[in-house]
């Protein structure tokens, strides 16, 4: 009746060996699939990073032209009154043009001179203007000034357009190429750290455009988001997990929080537009509104992560504290919270990483505007890094391709620094039990 009982042990061993072979085969297949999956992931990450770094790394250095500028009183302040109004509105472009003419006296004719002037960034006069307004004693002196070359020159020098490419693609005439070569030979056209990219706000000129504005916008927005959503989220999680009674109402709240985590982010943007800007009359494009919207967006994530961190604290610790006569608040504050804090920080990291990458809800509240000034406060008009990436990706100038990738690199560095800080904090708070 029982076939096992009738077998000799040798027959059993043969059967076991056969099943072992089958088991080894399926284990091998499973491992191979796992290795494949991991390699695909690694490949995707490296491919993505490789592409972005390949496109964007060049942006951190830029071509600069060094010219000797004569702060000509005749041009800046012909009336000699040094009136701030006059200093602010003077034709500083003319100073740069004069310096170029002085450097290349053999270039003649209106058309040729215009081509010569095009080689220096058209936004450079602004730095002259700022310098003179701040320090009118410069007028009448001569000084070496380094200013960004035009983006077409920059791309040509970096080899991003070929020397022999058609003029329409190269965007430089033969005469301009000849001047660029002479500048390089004379040592006045040099590659330097791209101060504009790291120090400026947005600009229509690629060589003047920078991520500083967006970076500050992201910092302000995320800083306030963290300050709002972490304490609120943790407090909500503690109350729901440790104090609230379990009934229909709290179940409803729990379901709602879980559902909120799945709401498309643009809906939060619409909410922010209607409530914070429409109803409360808060300023448009401001980081304060952005962080309020992102707080709403990250709250469910923070609450859910914090609650599971609280759930993971062993009940024996609670019993120990309660058994000692600690009140419920003391039990939570002295014992449960310190143990749950690392998990809560992880939740905050996930929430903040999501908030950092969000652009859709911020479009709704006007953080997508073209903003040249670097924001100084929470109510200044600002944009954030992902929106800046989105804006630049849309522009026709080819030099913005590199700047788009450059902004992504800055965004990724921001993310890594933020996460590293959080991981460091988490490890400091981590305790074993």
């Amino acid at each position, binding site marked *: 009746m029982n076939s096992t009982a009738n077998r000799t042990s040798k027959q059993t061993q043969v059967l076991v060996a056969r099943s072992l072979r089958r088991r080894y085969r399926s284990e091998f297949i499973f491992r191979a699939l796992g290795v494949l999956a991991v390699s695909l992931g690694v490949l995707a990450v490296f491919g993505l990073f490789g592409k972005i770094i390949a496109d964007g790394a060049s942006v951190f250095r830029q071509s600069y032209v060094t010219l000797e500028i004569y702060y000509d009183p005749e041009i800046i302040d012909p009336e000699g009154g040094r009136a701030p109004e006059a200093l602010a509105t003077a034709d500083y472009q003319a100073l740069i043009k004069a310096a170029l003419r002085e450097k290349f006296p053999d270039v003649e004719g209106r058309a040729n001179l215009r081509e010569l002037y095009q080689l220096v960034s058209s936004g450079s006069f602004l730095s002259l203007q700022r310098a003179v307004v701040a320090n009118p004693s410069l007028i009448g002196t001569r000084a070496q000034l380094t200013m960004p070359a035009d983006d077409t020159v920059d791309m040509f020098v970096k080899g991003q357009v070929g020397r022999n490419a058609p003029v329409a693609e190269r965007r430089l005439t033969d005469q301009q190429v000849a001047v660029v070569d002479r500048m390089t030979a004379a040592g006045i056209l040099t590659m330097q750290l791209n101060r504009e990219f790291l120090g400026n706000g947005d600009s229509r000129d690629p060589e003047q455009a920078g991520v500083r504005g967006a970076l500050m916008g992201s910092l302000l927005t995320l800083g306030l988001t963290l300050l709002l959503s972490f304490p609120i989220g943790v407090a909500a999680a503690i109350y729901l997990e440790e104090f609230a009674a379990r009934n229909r109402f709290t179940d409803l709240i729990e379901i709602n929080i879980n559902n909120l985590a799945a709401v498309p982010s643009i809906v939060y943007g619409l909410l922010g537009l209607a409530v914070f800007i429409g109803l409360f009359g808060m300023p448009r494009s401001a980081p304060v509104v952005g962080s309020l919207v992102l707080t709403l967006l990250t709250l469910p994530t923070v609450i859910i992560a914090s609650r599971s961190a609280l759930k993971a604290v062993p009940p024996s610790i609670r019993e120990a504290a309660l*058994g000692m006569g600690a009140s419920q608040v003391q039990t939570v504050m002295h014992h449960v919270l310190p143990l749950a804090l690392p998990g809560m920080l992880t939740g905050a990291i996930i929430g903040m990483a999501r908030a950092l990458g969000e652009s859709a809800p911020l479009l709704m509240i006007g953080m997508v505007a073209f903003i040249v000034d670097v924001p100084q406060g929470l109510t200044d008009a600002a944009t954030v890094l992902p929106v800046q990436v989105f804006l630049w990706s849309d522009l026709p100038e080819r030099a913005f391709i590199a700047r788009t990738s450059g902004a992504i690199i800055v965004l990724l560095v921001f993310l890594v620094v933020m996460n590293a800080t959080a991981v460091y904090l988490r490890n400091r708070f981590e305790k074993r039990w």
Partner: protein
Amino acid sequence: MLMNAQPEVAPVRATVGDVTVPNPLMTCRNVDVWYGDKQAIRSVSIDIARAQVLAMIGPSGCGKSTFLRCLNRMNDTIPSARVTGEIIFDGRDIQNKRQDVVQLRSRVGMVFQKPNPFPKSIFENVAYGPRIHGLAADRSELDEIVTESLKRAGLWEEVKDRLAQPGTSLSGGQQQRLCIARTLAVNPEVILMDEPCSALDPIATARIEDLIDELRQTYAIVIVTHSMQQAARVSQRTAYFHLGDLIEVGPTDKIFTNPSHKLTEDYITGRFG
């Protein structure tokens, strides 16, 4: 016919033996505990004597731990639990809403089945109770309480040089003695012990049992145990629980040598459990 569809509820079994003691510290009368619709304890009445160890024995699920947790209202932490009946301590029913549980638990300490020191230093573990209850006026007084408690728990010699190390770095037996020291630091009147040795090896168990014997001079101790030998060794009075009923109470030697109830006898002689 319809009546037969109802599950049969066995009648409450009356307790054999004398549940009262002269000058009791705690008096429990007709205590019932429900978890939701399920009744875990039925009409348990028993007195808890001063300076004596009461052992509660019985098969798993008989309600002895549940009853123990009524004595310092630890059942409050279970939302579905409902306790009725009288538990008089110091002339007052501790079930009364006006009874402050924090104060109650400072007088009725508890040691749990699994050693559960706080993930803090050895010193902080013992100092926690005095701190939250405001028992020490200054640091030197706190030091004194911690030292004294560790000495009474028989742990001082082993840990005096490493008070700053985490309590969780100790061995299982040491951890359990640390938990006892932590309870002693609040100077309670009753110490409840819920199978305090079930996670320990025989040597650590023997040390705890010696400790219980010493502590009995000062405290009323109620211990739940699965080991009948342990009950016989450490207790002066034994209560036998069976399926939520308190079956028999009596002096420990009588329960183990000459039990009156058939169920007690079956359990003692190892016929089940």
